[in-house]
């Protein structure tokens, strides 16, 4: 088997996930080989193109509108003022009169002082600029976070104030006897779920919310809970789920959710009671 063939499997793994995809020794051996072998480098480049295609094949999705503002606010052009100030002072320094044969040492001392002062000034200015940029970045992050909370609250108010909203109380089941929840459901605006005392999830599992209609259980979505077992969230409601709803339930399902409930019910409430 030639060296190229020997490295074929490793190159495929490396193209998909970088060095972390391989065992450390294997990754080192491959990198050493790649440094010396143009054929294998070309092979890696081609398979990386395929890997990029895998990334591009993920379903594109509109990010929230506030994110564009946040991205552009991060992009602050380099502040030319610092360099300008620095170069003006530098110019003053180099254009200093040269008829200095009278007291050359004084001039030298002054020059040194000027250089030190210039450097110090530039350092201070740079520090102030950095502080200002950091403060701006922190403020931007705060704005994004507040905007997110605001989006969530306004979606919740939409549901709670909808004329067609109905409330359903959910009671804890044997697998979660202390849990309780309330759902407000509006066929036009969506659902708000508020739950308390849900048990912590085992690894690889997630809570899934269902509207059980006369036809079948319809998945509304999956969710996790805070460390204290509480959760509040708003989610859209599909047309299927709003026709003849009979009950609302929460089950524990494998991470990622399932098309029809399989796991234990932890909360159940009957619509219209």
């Amino acid at each position, binding site marked *: 088997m030639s060296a190229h063939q020997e490295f*074929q*499997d*490793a*190159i*495929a*793994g490396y*193209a*998909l*996930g970088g060095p*972390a*995809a*391989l*065992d450390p020794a294997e990754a080192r051996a491959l990198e050493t080989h790649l440094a010396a072998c143009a054929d294998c480098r070309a092979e890696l480049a*081609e*398979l*990386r*193109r*395929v*890997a*990029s*295609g*895998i*990334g*591009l*094949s*993920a*379903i*594109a*999705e*509109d*990010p*929230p509108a506030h*994110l*564009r503002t946040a*991205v*552009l606010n*991060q*992009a602050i*052009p380099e502040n030319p003022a610092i360099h300008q100030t620095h170069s003006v002072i530098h110019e003053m320094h180099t254009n200093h009169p040269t008829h200095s044969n009278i007291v050359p040492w004084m001039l030298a001392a002054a020059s040194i002082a000027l250089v030190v002062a210039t450097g110090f000034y530039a350092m201070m200015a740079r520090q102030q600029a950095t502080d200002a940029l950091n403060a701006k970045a922190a403020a931007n992050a705060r704005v994004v976070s507040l905007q*997110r909370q605001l989006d*969530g609250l306004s979606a919740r108010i939409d549901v709670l104030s909808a004329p067609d909203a109905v409330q359903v109380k959910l009671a804890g089941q044997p697998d979660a006897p202390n849990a309780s929840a309330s759902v407000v459901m509006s066929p036009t605006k969506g659902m708000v*779920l508020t739950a308390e005392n849900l048990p912590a999830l085992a690894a690889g599992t997630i809570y*899934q*919310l269902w509207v059980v209609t006369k036809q079948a259980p319809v*998945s509304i*979505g*999956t*969710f*996790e*809970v*805070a*460390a204290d077992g*509480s*959760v*509040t*969230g*708003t*989610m859209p409601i599909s047309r299927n789920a709003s026709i003849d709803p009979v009950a609302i339930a929460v089950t524990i399902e494998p991470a*990622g*959710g399932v098309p029809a409930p399989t796991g234990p019910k932890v909360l159940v409430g009957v619509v219209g009671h």
Partner: protein
Amino acid sequence: MQSDQHLLAAIASGSETATDALGALYDAHARVVFGLAKRILVKPEDAEEVVQDVFAQVWRDAKKYEETRASVAGWLVMLTRTRAIDKLRARKARPDLDQANDPTPIFQASAAKGLTPEALAVSSSEAARVGVALNALPDEQRKFIDLAYFEGLSQSEIAEQTGTPLGTVKTRMRTALHSMRAALTP
């Protein structure tokens, strides 16, 4: 409309038009970057952070782009995947802390994850061909590609998690990538 390369050059120049160029690049690619980050991280707010980080890196490193030979979209995808997987690993390493810091509930529609015609339309034709080829893979191969690319698992971790011999994981992964490459050259 300016090409991606022109936009990157404008960003790299740091001139007055740099911010506008970043905005144009964002408008052209943010949907793909956000979609990929969300595919990997699921939580929308984590995906938003990745989008911010990726475009911040583009802003800083636009000059370095020429050194890479990928298309701009390919470069963005690479940056996005790397940052999202880093975040995913960090999250796995401290699940409790993560949950305590982030009590916001996440509701994720549990829709099928297959490619939609819309996704094919927005991707470049090359990516669309890879997407079709990806969907056409046998389930076993497809699963390994998903675990490696979207979940950042190493080949050994995939072998362990799926109870498959390491050699089989490697072979299937290579076979899968090679058949997708064949789809790239029609």
